[in-house]
Every structure is written in structure tokens, then in C-alpha cells.
């Protein structure tokens, strides 16, 4: 192959010769790639192992969730929103249900709120555990994923007892939940709560003092707080940069103002901080769940049923029901109105903006996915970093593609 054939000549007829051709290499990472966590395409310009430019291409998983809402009644639409963010779909449901509850001003019983809080926090743990496993997998350690999945399976079994499904729950209803907890479920949750902290300690012991892990995460992918906010980054990724923004504290929804917990904040904003913040958040979630389980209005369903059978009128209080007001979901027409509900999902602000126009369908439903904004900071973080850092940085901002593409 002639190396000089394609080079232009100057007017004097002198060849411009290059002895080594050092073009940049454009690598098309994805849409199918082991560590893009779904179908993300990253057009990466590499100079050797150095990343010069990276451009995320999204939309491969666009299932037009927002358009679907226009052709279905709200009740028909609800089962499909599990898929907006399938790793923590209780949050989707909460945002959706709470938006309509605000528009229609539906009363939600206290017991329901507590059940919701427990399920959401358990769901946060499953999500963080999955992140923990896959993040270490991205860094090349294969075993932690299996450990993380062991705990996650236990929580999913709890969910299965409660909702009948392991992933796609569809458990919340407007103004309530579909059914009360099965008898003895709270005890199972307690058993998990007793066991989990030991496990989390184990995980940290395996990973967080490993010199290779520290080398690959400390000082890598530092996000300055101002930059993070500019890019709309939320959730643990933002808190790792030291911004104290947790909606559970800042704008308490559900019953988060009735439980005590701390918000772990990072100081440096590197991958290691994001790791520690998430690990710490799982422990804080356990705290919340324990308080919610202990303070559950009405207590365990078995007790409540006994009280009802024995004719205790207080057990039939509206706060202890599974619905505030029974509505016929098939024919239900919400009043006109609009509401934007953002919840603190495991990845940040998960928002549901709902406009109703008095018909059974919503006029417009907009999903605000936390991953969508979080992903947009990736090019900024990757500029001038090494290629293997892509995995530690991309993994650490915990993007889930169904939520990006919706």
C-alpha cells in the first residue's frame, strides 16, 4: 500500500510526507456492548487510549411512553409505566399516582403511605445493589455482582409476596394500593433488615479497600457541584459532589417528614464518592424502612384483621384502609388540572408532569427521567480521560437506558 498516494502536492510539486499516520480512531461503542447497560451508543474518538471526544446517541429504546398515554385511559396506562424505569418502578408509579392524586385531590390513607414508603425504599436498595454489582463488573470484578444479586433476590421475593410480581409491580392505585400486605409480611421485612447491614459491610470489605478499585475510582470523573447542577444532574451523583439536595428532605412527600434519616454527601465528587454515597444510602434506606415498619399504622395485617373480627371499630378507620376513596377505575374521569410530581428516585429526580382535561385519558404526560439529564454530563467528564475510565465514569453515574429513552 502506497502511503504517499493520497497526499496532496504543493504547487512546487513537493510531496508532503508523513511517516507515521496518526489519525484518531473513531470507535462506535454500542448500541450492543457489555458495559453500556442497555442500548446506548457512544461515538468515541480515541487517540491511542485517550478519549478525545465522546458523543452519546440515545433513543434506541424509545418506546413512546408519552404518546401511549394519549390513547389509553389513565388506568389502562398505569401497567405500562413500570417499564419507564424497570429497576425501580415503584418510583414511577408513585410519581404517576401522586400526580393524579394531587389533581383530583384524592385522600391517601396513612397506612398506604407507609406501605408506599417501605416499598420505595426497598426498591431503592434493589436498584443500588444492582448498580453495585454491575459497576464492579464494569471494573472487571465478577464476584460482587452475584453477592449483590443474592440480596436483591431476597427483596424481590418480598415484593413478590406483596404484589405478585418481581419486577413489574403495578401495585399502587389512585388513592391507595391494590391490596393490603399479606399477613406476616412485615416480619419478613424485619428479618431482611436484621440481615442486610452485615451483608453491606461485607460488600464494602470486599471492594472499598481494594487498591485496584481505589486506583480506578479515586480522583476519576470529578464533577464540580456547579457543573453538575448546570447539567441537571440529580440524585446520588449530585450528592456525591456535596450538594445537599434530597427531595425526601427538601420537599417531603409521602411520609418522609415523619421518619429520621441522614443524607450522605460526598466532598470530592469523584467515582469513589459516588460509590460510597450509594452504599451509605442503602443503610439510610434500611433506617427508614425500620422506622416505617415499626410505626406502621395498624401494624401487621394479621393484627388488624383480628381487631376487625373482634369488632373493634377503630380498626376500620379510614387511615387504615387500602383506599382512601374507592373510585371506579374503568370509568373514572379525573378533573381538569395539571401537576408536576418529582420524586427522589435512586437516580435522581424522577418526574411525572400530568395534564388532564376531564376525559379518562390524560391530555399530556411527560416523564422526566433522571438518567436523561445525568447522561448528558458524560461527554464533559470523559474529555481527555483514558478509555478504561469510560467504564468507571459511565458506570458511576448510574444510567439506566429505558429511563433515558422512555
Amino acid at each position: 500500500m502506497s502511503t504517499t498516494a493520497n497526499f496532496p502536492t504543493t504547487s512546487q510539486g513537493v510531496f508532503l510526507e508523513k511517516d507515521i499516520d496518526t489519525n484518531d480512531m473513531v470507535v462506535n461503542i454500542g448500541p450492543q456492548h457489555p458495559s453500556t447497560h442497555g442500548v446506548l451508543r457512544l461515538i468515541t474518538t480515541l487517540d491511542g487510549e485517550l478519549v478525545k471526544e465522546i458523543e452519546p446517541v440515545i433513543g434506541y429504546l424509545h418506546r413512546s411512553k408519552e404518546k401511549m398515554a394519549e390513547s389509553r385511559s389513565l388506568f389502562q396506562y398505569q401497567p405500562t409505566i413500570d417499564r419507564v424505569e424497570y429497576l425501580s418502578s415503584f418510583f414511577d408509579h408513585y410519581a404517576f399516582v401522586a400526580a393524579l392524586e394531587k389533581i383530583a385531590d384524592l385522600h391517601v390513607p396513612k397506612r398506604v403511605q407507609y406501605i408506599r414508603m417501605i416499598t420505595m425504599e426497598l426498591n431503592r436498595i434493589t436498584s443500588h445493589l444492582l448498580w453495585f454489582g454491575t459497576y464492579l463488573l464494569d471494573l472487571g470484578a465478577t464476584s460482587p455482582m452475584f453477592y449483590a444479586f443474592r440480596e436483591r433476590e431476597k427483596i424481590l421475593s418480598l415484593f413478590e409476596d406483596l404484589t405478585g410480581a418481581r419486577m413489574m409491580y403495578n401495585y399502587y392505585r389512585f388513592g391507595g394500593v391494590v391490596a393490603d400486605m399479606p399477613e406476616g409480611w412485615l416480619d419478613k421485612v424485619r428479618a431482611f433488615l436484621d440481615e442486610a447491614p452485615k451483608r453491606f459491610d461485607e460488600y464494602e470489605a470486599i471492594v472499598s479497600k481494594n487498591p485496584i478499585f481505589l486506583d480506578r475510582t479515586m480522583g476519576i470523573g470529578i464533577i464540580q457541584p456547579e457543573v453538575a447542577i448546570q447539567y441537571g444532574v440529580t440524585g446520588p451523583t449530585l450528592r456525591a459532589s456535596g450538594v445537599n439536595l434530597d427531595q425526601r428532605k427538601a420537599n417531603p412527600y409521602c411520609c418522609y417528614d415523619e421518619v429520621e434519616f441522614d443524607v450522605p454527601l460526598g466532598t470530592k465528587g469523584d467515582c469513589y464518592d459516588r460509590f460510597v454515597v450509594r452504599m451509605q444510602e442503602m443503610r439510610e434506606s434500611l433506617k427508614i424502612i425500620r422506622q416505617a415498619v415499626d410505626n406502621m399504622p395498624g401494624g401487621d395485617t394479621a393484627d388488624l384483621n383480628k381487631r376487625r373480627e373482634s369488632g373493634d371499630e377503630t380498626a376500620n378507620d379510614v387511615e387504615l384502609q387500602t383506599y382512601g376513596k374507592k373510585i371506579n377505575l374503568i370509568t373514572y374521569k379525573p378533573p381538569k388540572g395539571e401537576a408536576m410530581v418529582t420524586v427522589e428516585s435512586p437516580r435522581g429526580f424522577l418526574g411525572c408532569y400530568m395534564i388532564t382535561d376531564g376525559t379518562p385519558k390524560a391530555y399530556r404526560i411527560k416523564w422526566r427521567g433522571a438518567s436523561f439529564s445525568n447522561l448528558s454530563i458524560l461527554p464533559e467528564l470523559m474529555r481527555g480521560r483514558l478509555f478504561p475510565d469510560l467504564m468507571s465514569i459511565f458506570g458511576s453515574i448510574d444510567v439506566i437506558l429505558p429511563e433515558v429513552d422512555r
Partner: protein
Amino acid sequence: MENIISNLFKMIGLPTEVAYILAFFAAAGLLFFVLSLVGQVAVVFMVLMERKILAWITQRKGPNRVGPWGLLQTVADGVKLLFKEDIMMPHQDKLLFTLAPVLFFAPTFVIYALIPFTDQLLGINLGLGLLFVFALSSLGVVGMVLAGWGSNNKYSLLGGMRSASQAISYEIPLVLSALAVALAAGSLNIREIVETQNAGGFGLFSWYAISLLPLTFVIFWISSIAEVNRIPFDLPEAESELVSGYNTEYSGMKFALFFLAEYASLFGMSALMAVLFFGGYYSPFGGLITQNLGIDIPVVHQLEMATWIITKTYIFIALAMLIRGTLPRLKPDQLMGFSWKFLIPLSLVNLFMVAILKMAWLQENIPTIPLFGREISVCYLGTYAALFLLLIATLAGFGSIFKRKVVPHIQLQQRTV
């Protein structure tokens, strides 16, 4: 063996010269066939062992469906790979693409010929055996680079380049630490190294892993893990970055060749470690147990020798697998830095220290003190003690490099609103 075969050829009626040449190739082919057969049987069980060990680490059961305890699982996988389509894309360099797995596969199995499994069971007894082993083990890298280039795939290319740079970086400490062994033994013949190692009769304590500064062994071990591309040094096929690295484009039997050769080279390196540092085919109690017990049957001795070296080899294989189940992967810059800034200077220092040790061994007419029922030179003991202190200092330095101050970055924020 060559003679037998050449006689066979002569019996057919071929001229003597032709018969010899043909016999040479036939013998070489036969040897290679036997070696690769042995190697593949070893690999079959290594793959199963790895899967079982990883399953054990991660609390799973591992393969348990094909054959008793899943023993035939790898065979089934191999048969499946044999029947897979061998995909080759039009834009690939056909020659290099086909040549690469062969170039990777062949040298790793030839190494088996140089490992003394007993004092008799030895393919070739080369005077420069150790040198030849390293020559062969570095040839495998050519296969990887060719695979990366011939695949015409960017991931493969990156993987091939990484493997080249990694091999260059880690062969230096590998060879330097092996050189220390050769220096101590005074020979490059592998069998002689084994014999010299066990000549002292101290058993475990005369093995080079202990008598010749454990540091030598540690350097060799780390470098050999890098040499066979296993976690945490598996950058050429880093699955989370490069999909599968240099063998991304390979399928069917060509992929199986890469797969087999990787395990075969792990076996080869582990066997080499057993031979160079852990007394080869001798027991850790000095000599052979059966010999010490007075059983004087040669076959029993041979069997015991083979048992010892295979056991030692599999211990190292199991350790490599444990490491794989535990550690994350390094980055290329850390990998290079670790080799060039740390391992290579350390191995040079180590070589120097071993040379001093050797000089101490060679000193005569020096007062001796009785120890373990033998007369041991004071100079030897003094040097050894001094070097041991040096080693501890070095290891402390090693530790301080890797010991991080894990500052708890995290502060817990109480209610603010």
C-alpha cells in the same frame, strides 16, 4: 523415538537420509500431538475447575448437568464449538486471521515438552531449556497481535496493541526473576534446576521460593499472571471495555484454539513456577516420601514425582482462579506504571541480592555452625539474615505504595429544611 520411526521408514524401503528427515518430522508431530492431547485433557479439567471455583466463590453450584459433577461440561462445550460456524468477514485479512490462533496455540503447548514432570518423563532435555520456555511464551503474543490486526476490528486492534505492550512490560521482570533462579542453580537446564534445588535435602526450606528470597517468587508470580493475561491483568480481552479484545471476531474452532491456549499457557506457567520455585517433582519433606520409606520400585517413584508436580501446578492454577474471582481489572497506565516503575527496578535489585547470596554460598573455609543436623556457613546465615531484613524493608515499601489513606469523604447531613 526418532530411531524407532526411522527404522520403520527404512523397513518400508525409503533411503536412509529421507527416512531420518521424515522420522524427525513424524516424531515431532507425534510429540506435539501427545502434548496437546495431554494439554487439552488438562485444560478440560482446568476450565471445569475454574467454573467450579468461581461458582464456589459466588455461592452458586457451577456446571452439574453434563456427566457426574459436570465433568463432561467442557467436553460438551468443546464439541459445540467444533460444530459452530467459522465466520470470516470479507474485510478481514484471511491469512493473518487464520494464522493467529495457530501462532498463539502452538508455542503454549510446546512449553509442555520442556517441563520435567518426573526426572524421566521429560519431552526434551534442553541445555538452555529455561531460555527456550521464555522464547516460546513470548511467541504467543505475536499470535494475539496478529489476531488484533487481522480481525480488522477496532476493539481487536486495541486488544492486540495492549497485549503487545503488556507482554513487553511484564516479560522483563519475569525473565529477570527467572534469571535469579538460573544464577542460583548455575544452570539453564530445567531438570538441573530442580535437582540443584533439592540437593540440600532441606525439603521445603531448600526450595527457591524460600531459600532464594520469596521476593523472587513474588515477582515471578505477578509477572506470570500478567503474561497469561488473567485478571487483574486481562487488559487484552477486557470484556467491559473491548467486548472480548483480540478474539472478538473469532468463532468456532478458531476461538476454541484461543480459549484452549489461554488455559494451556496458564498451566504451563504454573508448572514452571512449581519447577523453578517449589522443588518440581520432589516432596516438601526432602527427597521422595516413598524413597525415604524404603520402597525401591522405580514406577512408584515416578508416580510420586508426577503427583507432586501436578499437585503443585494445580495449587497455582487454583490461586490464579481465586485472584480472578476477587480482583477488579487494572487500567493500562497503571499496568505499565506498575511494571516499569516498580517491578522492573525491584527485580533488578532482587537479582543483585541473589548474586550476593550466591557468593555467600560459594565461600569456603568459613566457620560453620550445626543447624538441622548439618554444618551451615556463618557467612551464608549472615547474608541471608541481612537480605531478609532488606526484603522486609522492600515489602514495607511495597505496602506503602499500595496502602491508601481511605479518607471517609462522606458526611451525613441532618435535616436542613
